[in-house]
């Protein structure tokens, strides 16, 4: 689904590359989390997958970028639009404002794709219930809470059925309740094996729960790549400006205090922690 080879990218005027010789392959159906400190290049990677690097930001891109069979640097943004869905942090800026209800807002992308009316209605009803927005369908998008707006943004993208869905820190501007709502939707998304998902995220506890694979970015490079259990429990995490989950931290503290001896498998989720401390 994703094939990146030696991708290096400089923003205009930049002297340091935002992506530095990055290679990555993601098979269809995988839920892949990208973690890394602020400035590590997560957003840039997301924009590259969706074609905004280089088509929108210009700058200098070298290497191979192939997403859902599309040669990204050679294609137009309009051609990539149906193939890659992008959701980002600010829910307000993702509302087009050109539609008056939640239902119509979700329809916006389908209208632009020229989807016939009957199919459009069916797809919207499906996605409304998937994102738990059915009750809010006739409300104004501006009257929703941050978490509801972000679920609307996700629904608006999913309804277009892009083979690849990219989410760039979708909960970083939400309160805890809103974040929880959004993660619930992401968990359901991970459970369906239809879409391939790339999620840039700093909240490692959530990543640990539903990612198939975790990639650590640092200064535009991939510095770790593997199953969540391995990557998130690794001792290198702090070196890349990341905080291990509190379960890992607790286990490590217990280890240091001599309460536990087996250093083999540190827990990264609540369930694993319960098991670990039994």
């Amino acid at each position, binding site marked *: 689904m994703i094939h990146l080879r030696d991708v290096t990218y400089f923003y205009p005027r930049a002297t340091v590359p935002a992506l530095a010789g990055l290679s990555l392959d993601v098979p269809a159906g995988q839920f892949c989390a990208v973690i890394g400190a602020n400035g590590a290049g997560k957003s840039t990677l997301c924009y590259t997958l969706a074609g*905004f690097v280089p088509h*929108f930001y210009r700058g200098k891109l070298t290497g191979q970028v192939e997403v859902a069979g599309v040669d990204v640097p050679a294609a137009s943004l*309009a051609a990539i*639009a149906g193939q890659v869905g*992008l959701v980002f942090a600010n829910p307000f*800026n993702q509302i087009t*404002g050109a*539609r008056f209800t939640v239902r119509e807002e979700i329809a916006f992308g389908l209208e632009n794709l020229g989807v*016939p*009316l009957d199919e459009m209605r069916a797809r919207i009803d499906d996605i409304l219930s998937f994102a738990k927005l059915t009750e809010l369908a006739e409300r104004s998008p501006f009257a929703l809470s941050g978490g509801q707006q972000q679920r609307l943004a996700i629904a608006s993208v999913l309804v277009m059925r892009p083979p690849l869905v990219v989410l760039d820190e979708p909960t970083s501007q939400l309160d805890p309740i809103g974040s929880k709502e959004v993660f619930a939707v992401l968990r359901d998304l991970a459970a369906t094996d239809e879409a391939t998902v790339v999620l840039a995220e700093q909240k490692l506890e959530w990543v640990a729960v539903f990612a198939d694979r975790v990639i650590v970015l640092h200064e535009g490079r991939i510095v770790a790549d593997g199953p969540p259990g391995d990557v998130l429990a690794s001792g290198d995490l702090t070196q890349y400006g990341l905080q291990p989950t509190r379960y890992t931290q607790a286990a490590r503290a217990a280890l240091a205090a001599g309460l536990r001896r087996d250093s083999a498998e540190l827990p990264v989720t609540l369930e694993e922690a319960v098991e670990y401390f039994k």
Partner: protein
Amino acid sequence: MTVNYGLYVPKQSGIHSLHPLTKLAYLGFCLAVSWVIPGTWTPYLVFLLGIVPLSALGQVLPNILSGAFKAVLPFAISLFVVQGFFWPEGTVLQQIGPFSLKEEGLFFAIRGAGRILMAVSTFLLLSYTTRPDELTLALGQLGVPNSIAYVILSTLQIIPRFQTKATTILDAQRSRGLETEGSLRVRARALLPLVLPLLLSSIVDIEERAIALEVRAFGRQGPKTSLLVLHDTPWQRLLRWLLLLAALGVIVWRIYAALAPRFLS
């Protein structure tokens, strides 16, 4: 909060369910007649016969009357003073101190106020009975690009929210001791710190808003569909053409009537 369609007054009426272009053609015809046909009272007659009954049918008559009154009143007062009292020469009707009310000026003012009344009330009747997205969809059928519809609809919705933000900042600045009352200079100086951050943040947001639109295939060429469906009938289509022709006819007749004496004499 429910959906806010701006000036639109949600009602079940025959006028509401007319195709927007039919309303547009009808209102254009009324406006042409009221502006082009001479006579001090013509605009008022068109208002009474053309606008009032339709407003009543559309259950927005009180809205039209109060909306039009509020909009026309300042113009009417100005017209009465500027044209009524400062008309260069003419029949003096009334002398008040050094000023004299002249008949010609008064009639000119009455007709002028009537024309403004018609301009305002046609605009309001359309806005009260037509959802903005229905109107832009109808304009799309005339070939107005999709992007224009986007600009109109999104600004309609963002302006009230922007205003709320501005009020919040205004209050915050006030509580920090910034003068928003007082002398002209003080108020003018208050302006920049108040608005600059607001303007900058809305300009910075443009980048993300554009990305969000591209993700939704906004830039895609080719046929588009619409969840909103407009109701149209052959009768309405015929009526629109007739109204358009009639409006053109009135205008052409008026131009002919104005020019003919010069060329024929």
